[in-house]
């Protein structure tokens, strides 16, 4: 909503309040003023001139030599290229020394040998937006009315010296979608009275209801329909002040009849529609629901097909307008129109919203009806329209109104205790304080024994419940005046849940290990949605995606992380190590998909680089695995984790492991398949993804101190020769199993599969630590345990001691 400061002054005294001050006050008490714009800013020295003579330039077809009276001793000669310039016109003249928008300075000039002392301006050249310039002057200079005073300030005459406040209206404040609504708000803020327009005018004896009959069939959708009739109107230009105000409000002037309806739209917030009476051959208006498939050609010359839930204004036979949305082409007011019917109605918000949405047509009118207009305004606006038609279109207003009213307009009565107002806001207001606030708002309020009873005016449809009244009191009392306190109540200590603590621990471990946290999008495309997924489900798809690229919910985080890795490598960053925790979305057929929290990582390039000492370690499988191992240690689940060689789509068949927790696969770690990596422009890249749910579910084992052993441990190393296919993990497990309670630690310290080995064999060396916390072990005991180990590995894998 654009609010003209000068127009607002018609309803309220704004003495001593600058537009900026007003904007600040309005913002602070409820409606955000998004900007204050002075149209004439940066423009000066433009006056009204009278074109005394206008002749063709002898040297140039398209130029005219004008002698213009600008209210000085002598006329000035101005060369003008506008096609519509002519003798006798009153025009806007930028004199020599004038400045126009864009800091365009007007200087003396010579055009094809003729001197030019200034410029005759179009409205666009004075900074008026092209879409607001009336069609008549769109292609040339603007003409003032003949009574314009020569030499007067043209900017003032065009009201460009105004200040326009742009209000950012929240949906509840539809009441401020009108000048009068803003005046009420301003009045409450400044505590000054509001002057409403005088609505008196003369009528002729003929009665409106004798000329046009009004009936409403759909009374729920249209509770109030009023029609005024104005005869013998002269369609022409509107008075300059009205044009100025419309432009300030962001509406293009058209002709006096249309302009008057638009003027009232802004003044009262009531959309009006004007019909050409002579086109309503039936002499009646019937408001009803459209027939399914019924057609109408609207003002914009488009043919619209209607459904049976759309409200239409008909002549009893055919639709003449889509109620509250747009008028019909055939009954439109034209330059030839002589007799006019003015419609002022109240249409139900939901009906207009539905119609407008289904037809795909929004208008100034529909957007207001949708939000709800004041039902009392329909009558006021009809009177105002009749008055302005008689004053500015020379019309004869028929007496009375042809009406169909099916609404009992009542003010909503709301009661609230003073105690509640103070309790909810934390203030200490008196009854008198509260009543004074409602007085300023021009809202009727009474109090008795601490109970305040308010009649919410129909113009304030947003006031429905006690809390709405609390807001009115609080905002006018001033949010600044509300004290600052903290809740006084019994509370439990705050904190993170075990799950949240584990998430933070995971984060810290990943970052401590050298990974950088990434955040990627949950929405992905059809191809990526199931790639690398530990479990593939039917993808969860959006009904109306913005693009195919973001149309389905991810089932794995890895594709998104790989995208980030590839993004960076395309920017000379060859080494990356990312991790992310976030949800993947797995549909199990229920109403909501299963949202699983996963941890994923992606690593490529060098893991360690210390060039001058010759240290350079590329990322490999064991780097990725080591990071996970560190995590299992931190989480205290290392004992329950094992890795098994695995085959997965898009993963290297020989370098991928399933991560198994308590016998269930919870993740994967491995190298991205070189073919897939190439497709993504990646070098050798390793990834992991872990489902966290099982680990989150596990209760953390309490920490307990074990006595530091007082007896020494004994170490024995063994080198075993086995087939290459035997996994180190398998051997380790067998050793641990066979070693019994005395075997405390098994550590692999060498792997050899070079030329000195027999074909297909390898050597693995383990260091075994034996210990008994209660006593010193004897050699015999160790030998016995050790032999059991050797026997077991031999029996189960055929491994021999390396000789």
């Amino acid at each position, binding site marked *: 909503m654009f609010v003209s400061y000068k127009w607002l002054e018609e309803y309220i005294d704004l003495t001593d309040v600058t537009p900026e001050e007003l904007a600040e006050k309005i*913002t602070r008490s*409820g*409606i*955000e003023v998004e900007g204050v714009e002075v149209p004439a800013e940066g423009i000066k020295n433009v006056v009204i001139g009278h074109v005394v003579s206008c002749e063709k330039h002898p040297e140039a077809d398209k130029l005219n030599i004008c002698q213009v009276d600008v209210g000085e001793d002598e006329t000035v000669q101005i060369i003008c290229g506008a096609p519509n310039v002519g003798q006798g016109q009153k025009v806007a003249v930028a004199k020599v020394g004038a400045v126009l928008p864009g800091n365009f300075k007007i200087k003396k000039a010579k055009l094809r040998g003729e001197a030019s002392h200034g410029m005759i301006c179009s409205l666009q050249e004075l900074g008026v937006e092209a879409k607001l310039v009336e069609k008549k002057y769109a292609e040339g200079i603007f003409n003032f009315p003949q009574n314009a005073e020569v030499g007067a300030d043209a900017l003032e005459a065009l009201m460009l010296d105004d200040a326009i406040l742009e209000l950012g209206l*929240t949906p509840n404040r539809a009441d401020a979608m009108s000048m009068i609504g803003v005046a009420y708000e301003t009045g409450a803020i400044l505590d000054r009275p509001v002057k409403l327009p005088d609505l008196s005018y003369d009528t002729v004896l003929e009665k409106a209801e004798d000329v046009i009959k009004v009936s409403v069939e759909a009374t729920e959708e249209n509770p109030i329909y009023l029609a005024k009739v104005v005869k013998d109107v002269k369609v022409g230009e509107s008075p300059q002040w009205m044009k100025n105000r419309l432009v300030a409000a962001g509406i293009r002037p058209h002709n006096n009849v249309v302009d008057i309806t638009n003027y009232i739209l802004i003044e009262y917030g009531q959309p009006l529609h004007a019909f050409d009476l002579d086109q309503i051959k039936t002499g009646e208006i019937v408001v009803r629901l459209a027939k399914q498939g019924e057609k109408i050609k609207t003002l914009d010359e488009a043919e619209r097909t209607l459904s049976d839930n759309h409200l239409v204004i008909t002549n009893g036979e055919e639709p003449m307008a889509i109620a509250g949305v747009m008028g019909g082409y055939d009954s439109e007011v034209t330059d030839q129109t002589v007799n006019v019917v003015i419609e002022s109605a109240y249409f139900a918000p939901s009906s207009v*919203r539905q119609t407008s949405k289904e037809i795909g047509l929004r208008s100034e009118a529909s957007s207001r009806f949708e939000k709800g207009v004041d039902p009392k305004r329909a009558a006021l606006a009809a009177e105002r329209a009749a008055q302005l038609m008689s004053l500015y279109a020379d019309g004869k207003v028929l007496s009375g109104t042809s009406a169909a009213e099916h609404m009992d307009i009542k003010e909503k009565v709301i009661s609230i205790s003073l105690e509640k107002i103070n309790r*909810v*806001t*934390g*203030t200490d207001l008196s009854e008198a304080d509260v009543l004074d606030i409602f007085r300023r708002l021009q809202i009727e309020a009474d109090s008795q024994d601490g109970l305040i009873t308010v009649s919410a005016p129909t113009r304030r449809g947003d006031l429905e*419940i*006690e*809390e709405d009244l609390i*807001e009115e009191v*609080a*905002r006018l009392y001033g*949010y*600044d005046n509300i004290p*600052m*306190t*903290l*809740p006084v*109540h*019994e*509370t439990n*200590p*705050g*904190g*993170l849940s075990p799950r*949240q603590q584990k998430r933070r621990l995971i984060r810290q471990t*990943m*970052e401590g*290990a050298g*990974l*950088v*946290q*990434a*955040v990627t*999008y*949950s*929405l992905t495309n059809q191809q990526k949605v199931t790639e690398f997924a530990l479990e593939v489900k039917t993808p*969860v*798809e*959006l*009904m109306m995606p913005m693009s195919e690229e*973001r149309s389905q919910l991810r089932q794995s985080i890895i594709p998104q992380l790989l995208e*980030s890795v590839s993004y*960076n490598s395309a*920017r000379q*960053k060859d080494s*990356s190590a*990312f991790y992310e925790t*976030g949800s993947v*979305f797995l549909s199990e057929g229920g109403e*909501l998909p299963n*949202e699983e929290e996963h941890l994923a990582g992606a690593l490529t390039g060098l893991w360690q680089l*210390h060039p*001058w*000492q010759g*240290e350079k370690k590329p990322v490999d499988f064991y780097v990725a695995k080591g990071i996970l191992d560190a995590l299992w240690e931190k989480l205290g689940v290392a004992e329950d984790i094992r890795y098994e060689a695995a085959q997965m789509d898009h993963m290297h068949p020989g370098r991928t492991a399933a991560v198994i927790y308590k016998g269930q696969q919870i993740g994967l770690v491995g190298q991205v398949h070189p073919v897939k990596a190439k497709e993504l422009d990646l070098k050798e890249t390793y990834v992991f993804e872990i489902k966290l749910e099982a680990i989150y579910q596990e209760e953390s084992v309490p920490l307990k101190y074990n006595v530091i052993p007082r007896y020494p441990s004994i170490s024995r190393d063994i080198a075993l020769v086995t087939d290459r296919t035997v996994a180190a993990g398998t051997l380790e497990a067998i050793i641990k199993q066979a070693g019994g309670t005395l075997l405390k630690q098994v550590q692999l310290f060498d792997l050899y599969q070079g030329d000195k080995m027999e074909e297909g064999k390898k050597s693995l060396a383990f260091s075994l630590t034996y210990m008994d916390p209660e006593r010193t072990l004897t050699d015999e005991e160790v030998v016995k345990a050790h032999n059991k180990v050797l026997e077991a590995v031999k029996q189960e894998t055929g491994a021999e001691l390396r000789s």
Partner: protein
Amino acid sequence: MEQRLQELKQEALEKVQHAADLKELNDVRVAYLGKKGPITEVLKGMGKLSAEERPKMGALANEVRDNITGAIEEKQEGLEKEAVEKQLAEESIDVTLPGRPVPAGHAHPLTTVIEEIEDLFISMGYTVEEGPEVEKDYYNFEALNLPKGHPARDMQDSFYITEDVLLRTHTSPVQARTMERHAGKGPVKIICPGKVYRRDNDDATHSHQFMQIEGLVVDENIRMSDLKGTLNVFAKKMFGEDREIRLRPSFFPFTEPSVEMDISCKICGGKGCSVCKGTGWIEILGAGMVHPNVLRMAGFDPEKYSGFAFGMGPERIAMLKYGIDDIRHFYTNDDRFLKQFARKEIR
């Protein structure tokens, strides 16, 4: 004999003096003080001396020995010190060469902001609640006083999956779910961080996915002044003790009264600049007193209970705090962006 001893002493001391290393010095010691050394030889001739001269000569011989021994010890100490110094000199390194890098991962700036806010509210007795990102229309809208057909819930603005399921457009459904779980009993004192989604084209200021963090307190006697005081603590801790706050009336369907909170602009100190668009104030968050319909829907009696809620965008806060110009940076994971947040900011 006496002269011979003096000569030997002179000779030995000279050799000690000239010994180049510990080995040479040892040779000198063996040569002069050894059992077969010249002093012993000389002393063997003592028998020829008179009874008066014998002790005199003995004393002299001891003195010569002591002198030589002393000189050797002194020299040895010097040589040892020299040797150590030489070795240390050889071992010296260029301390300005780069150290071996240790792995240095770090958090995403949004996580840093969210955790800072979480920790601040945890210290005030809040717990952290979470909920699903794919949410029922009921919790996302209806339970929050946004019934079907409400203008503020245009299909165009949300990513629907079915008629009744959508990607949550705010974290408020977590509030609705938590209140429902409390089954009409206070206090509820939570903050809810998480990802949310809106049907926006990604550009410098819009992102179809972004973060939100909301707070909710419901109990008996929760006042608007409590909201104001809480937000004031938050603003000062988050943005600096010298920041002022102001509340402006606003509108949200789930709160009444509703407010927007601005903080005074740090850049210009309130005088007005390009960051605050000349107003001296920067909008930070929306808040309000929980709408009675929302309390009622969740099973709370609005006559007994009241509450406040607030919500903010971690992206916006990070953008303001760090001067980030494009919201898309948060989701491209460009190393040149992320690494600027490797450092921990201590305030």
